[in-house]
């Protein structure tokens, strides 16, 4: 059983898996997603983003949320 101290990594795992899943479903081209993510302040290079989206790399929490925001805003289209 995970102790309290492991809550955060588990949360990160969950977020990362969710992001990978959404990326696959949204069928966004990586270059387009990276460009948008860069536009809202993202700091990772495209290769790291690719690795993260294939669950091969852990990235800082703030980048995790920026990636999520980028995907959400891109798939929302002109909703806002």
């Amino acid at each position, binding site marked *: 059983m995970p102790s309290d101290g492991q809550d955060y990594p588990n949360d990160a795992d969950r977020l990362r898996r969710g992001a990978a899943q959404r990326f696959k479903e949204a069928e966004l081209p990586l270059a*387009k997603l990276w*460009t*948008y993510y*860069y*536009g*809202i*302040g993202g700091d990772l290079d495209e290769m790291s983003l690719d690795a993260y989206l294939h669950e091969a790399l852990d990235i*800082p*929490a*703030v980048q995790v*949320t*920026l990636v999520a*925001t980028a995907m959400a*805003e891109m798939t929302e289209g002109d909703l*806002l």
Partner: protein
Amino acid sequence: MATSKALTTSDEFQDLLLESPGFPEFLLGLATLSASSLSSDESVECTITVERDGAPSTVASSSEEAQHLDETQYAFDDGPCLAAVRQQRVVLIQDLGSDGRWGSYSPAALKEGIHSVLAVPIPAGPSSRAALNCYARTPHAFEQDSVERVEELAGSMSRILQLALRLHAPEAYPEHLRAALKSRAVVDAAVSLIMLQHRGGRDGALDILQRAAKSSNRRLQEIASDIVQTGKAPSPPAEGA
């Protein structure tokens, strides 16, 4: 050909450059000014062709027929205006019906009702080539004095055209990359402002931006833009929130 109308002044050219949002609009204005300055009893249509190194050529036309004629030349990759642009020489066709030089271009032009063509190069600097092309519906519309007039007009456009080419250099980045660059600049400015107001770090500032976007259901870039415009950063989340 007009003799009474004064040549378009450099003031008019400058106004045109100041008022044009982009290069195509500027060129269109130049073609229109040329046509009205050269038309009198005989109506003259004008196109201006500009070829820039490493960029697609731009054509502006004072009328649709003239536009077709220029496109015809690009389709055949030959024609009086292309010759004027690429070889930087004056091309005069007194009567398309009897001028055998232009192959398949001639019948296409005659079909549009054009009988005389005069194409004059416009000096456009080291990395561009341009020409002012004039079309008329009667044969022998362009005599020696009108050739001189068109050459003078083309010469008077040279400076403003080179200015316009500098001002409207081909965009180095496609639209979506420019949008990202602009958005990033706004987000970075907002982040800097939040950091300054809260004496916080970059990650914390990005976090504040994201929370504000989420809670108001707006795009992060819009929130950032508001912050930059008002100079007011949203409050940081309460401790432990």
